[in-house]
């Protein structure tokens, strides 16, 4: 039976994680050196991080929608699709179980069943006790350890931290608050607050969030756009894409057209980014935000 060896290996890996013993893990990984572990990701954030660390995932959920919403980094062509994120295809996984499945608390209802096929690890920037940024760094480290790419993980973390510091310099002294929103339809937006990467950006730079209302577990609130008028002095940054035809409908939207930020040209938009993603998504968000907000900061100084 060719299946026995990987099975024993993965069993050893599970035991190693469960006991948390580094020596055991090291021997298992040393043994594993001939063959890199096959890792599946039901969670886009984990997929993004794996690829960023240079690991080719064995399988990722819902690749077409990943390409539409997360966009970068691109998924290698060898990776197979295992279906919807909350229902990874068990028939498919059972035929050649990966050594590890990375999922999120959001997508898993019944892990005992999944664990009969392969070890399952919940890896997430949300649902932890830590703030988003710290949780995401911990997640990146964890994925690095699991795949033996610790060095790459540290590089990615250092790079991100450096970029945040640079952003904090570039945005120094900015004093107008800003709403960061994504359109749901022409009347409603998701406005981002604490508890996700947008919150991290606000916490680590002088940028001030104009939205102080309640947010949900993913750090946003769904609101009608007239509530963006609550802070007339605020700027607005729209995360693209606009849903279909919303950009046209906004021409007719009297509230939008009369919002002080829109009338006075304090409106900008940034490239699509997955606000619930990992460090790569965070880097892309920070870069775009610096691009649109740094000129404002400079104006304030001069």
């Amino acid at each position, binding site marked *: 039976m060719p299946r026995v060896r990987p099975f024993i290996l993965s069993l050893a890996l599970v035991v190693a994680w469960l006991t948390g013993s580094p020596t055991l893990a090291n021997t298992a990984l040393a043994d594993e050196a001939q063959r890199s572990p096959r890792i599946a990701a039901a969670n886009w954030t984990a997929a993004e991080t794996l690829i960023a660390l240079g690991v080719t995932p064995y399988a990722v959920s*819902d690749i077409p*929608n990943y390409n*539409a*919403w997360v966009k970068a980094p691109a998924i290698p062509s*060898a990776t*197979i*699709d*295992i*279906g*919807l994120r*909350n*229902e990874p*295809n*068990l*028939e*498919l996984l*059972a*035929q*050649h179980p990966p050594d590890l499945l990375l999922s999120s*608390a*959001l*997508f898993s*209802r*019944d892990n005992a*069943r999944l664990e*009969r096929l392969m070890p399952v690890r919940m890896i997430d920037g949300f*649902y932890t006790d830590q703030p988003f940024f710290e949780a995401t760094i911990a997640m990146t480290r964890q994925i690095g350890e699991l795949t033996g790419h610790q060095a790459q993980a540290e590089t990615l973390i250092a790079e991100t931290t450096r970029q945040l510091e640079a952003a904090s310099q570039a945005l120094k002294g900015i004093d107008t608050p800003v709403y960061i929103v994504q*359109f*749901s*339809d*022409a*009347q*409603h937006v*998701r406005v981002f607050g604490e508890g996700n990467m947008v919150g991290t950006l606000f916490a680590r730079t002088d940028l001030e969030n104009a939205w102080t*209302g*309640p*947010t*949900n577990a*993913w750090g*946003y*609130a*769904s*609101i*009608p756009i*007239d509530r963006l*008028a609550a802070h*007339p002095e605020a700027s607005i940054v729209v995360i693209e894409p606009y*849903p*279909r*035809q*919303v950009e*046209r409908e906004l021409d*007719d*939207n*009297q*509230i*939008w057209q*009369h919002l*002080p930020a829109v009338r006075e040209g304090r409106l900008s938009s940034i490239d699509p980014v997955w606000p*619930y993603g990992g460090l790569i998504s965070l880097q892309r968000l920070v870069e775009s935000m610096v691009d649109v907000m740094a000129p404002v900061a400079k104006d304030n100084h001069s």
Partner: protein
Amino acid sequence: MSPRTSSPLWFALALGLLALGLGYATLTLQFGDLSGHWWQAAVSPDDASIRQIVMHYTFAPRLVVALLSGAALALAGCLMQQVLRNPLASPATLGVTSGAQLALVVATLWAPGWMLAGREWIALIGGIAATLLVFALSWKRRLAPMVVVLSGMVVGLYFSAINSALLLFHQESLSGLFIWGSGALAQDNWHDTRFLLVRLAIALVLALPLLRPLALLDLEEEGARSLGISLRKLRFAALGLGIFITACVVSAVGLIGFIGLASPAIARLSGARTLPQRLVWSMIIGALLLVVTDLGVQQLSPFTASMLPTGAMTAALGAPLLLWLLPRLKIGGSRPTPATGLTLPRRADPQRRLWLLAALTLIGALLSLVLGFMLSGSGAHPSIAGPADWGLILEWRLPRVATAAAAGLMLAIAGTLLQRMTGNPMASPEVLGISAGVAIGVIALMLLPLGIAPLSGSVTGFCGAAVALLVLVVSNRRSGFAPERLLLTGIAISSLLDAMRAIVLASDDPRAQQLLSWLGGSTYYASLSSSAWIVVIALALFALTLPLHRWLTLLPLGAPTAKALGMDVDRSRLLLLTLVALLTVAATLVIGPLSFIGLMAPHMARLMGFHGARHQLLGASLLGMLVMILADWLGRNLFFPYQLPAGLIAALIGGVYFMWGLRRL
């Protein structure tokens, strides 16, 4: 009813006062800073003051749109109920709303260019298409009320099944449509107001000449015909008008389901007698109901991170109101009306066809286990599983096939019992509200903070079902479980679930997808042990049902006949109801609240010529299993590795067969 409240005036006045109070509260809460300038801000705002602009372009038009939509939907509901002479008829039960929604979803996904022409027109086309389908299905029967409502329900179920399937795959791109779909009344200009005002006025003008002939429908059909009225033309005109109004409202502000059903009922109940009275009062009550709900929603929304959609909230608040009203509602006696319903040719030798069906079911089950996708090289390809794949089949395919079959069996029995018991072809486990109760319990669990509770879905689901059953029994005991009353109670409970579903979807919560998949009836979570349990339960309940076929033969004859033949009608109804509840709870817990099999299987059995109670029961059970097995297989393999819930597919298969059968009548 006490004489003091014998005119709808008091009810309307109370609602009106409530609306005024809430309106004032909302104004002070949201526009306190403009105090003293309210009128000026609403009518001619200062262009430089964003606060006045907000008031002029959101608050004021929203108020007017709520009034207009409420009145328009009530008018549509009133017309439909009058022409179909069925208190269950409403824009939603005739498939108009789901037709409109499907058109918008399809246009959004594949023809975004069309949306630029105006989404109201696309919604109108969808609504009209759904209606034309309903008319086509019931044309041969001269648009007989029962057939129209039946076709409408089927078309509605069908379209919303396709809708859910699309939403499942495109959740991120359609999140805006969730908000629209749940009836958010948010406005940002006066376009919708003008749009609705003009169309409501046209509809009213067109309705006037119809009033007199429609009023004559209060007489029996035969009487109306002898007065020289073309029933078909009248039905066509009145229904067409109702649908036009509905489509206009739906396209402008989204799905608002409850007003069209409730306002005419409330108007009639509180004492409006003649048709013109009922029409006027239902419009007033409908308008006020929607405004009160919307103002209430505006009061609450600053405190939450989620959208509170008014349309869904209407149902959430309206359902308890309807439950309270039901015992006071006068609907025709407990005599069912199968005379205007379905009569079918009898066919010989049902026994042989039963064996044939059983063989087909068995073959279907075997094929669905063996045929599937196998991994080879770097991808999965369709292939036949060999003996080497025994483990895969046993562990990952068999539980799903067995669960699907058991659920199909139980729902088919529940549907047969219900339809025979009530003599109403619209009856199904979901209409009774028990599967809705289960679903409400399960959703409540999903929404609790993750990992908080040692509770499982089966516990909360069972509690939900128990509460639903309790409501059913308490509000129906006095009437001796009269069929129409029972169905109305069930619809009220189901509308609560609909409201919850819409609120969750509109809340923009990432967990919505999981919810949609569960609601669609997925066998994804079936395991060997859970499927063994469910098969045992299904077989036990099936064995319990079989000896009851004498009751099932007598009950459709109506309560008086059954009593005359020596049957304890109340006791047998209660017992059957309990059995239906058990079947529904067991099926819903494993496969979600699908009504499709429960509604379709008994009809399919009848269309195939199984008429006797026993034969229909057996035939429906086999058909339920067969359709569910096929549905589950298609759901697993059609878009491999993506999986569609079996319930959705079952609705698609069953719907086509059912429409075809209806056409043949």
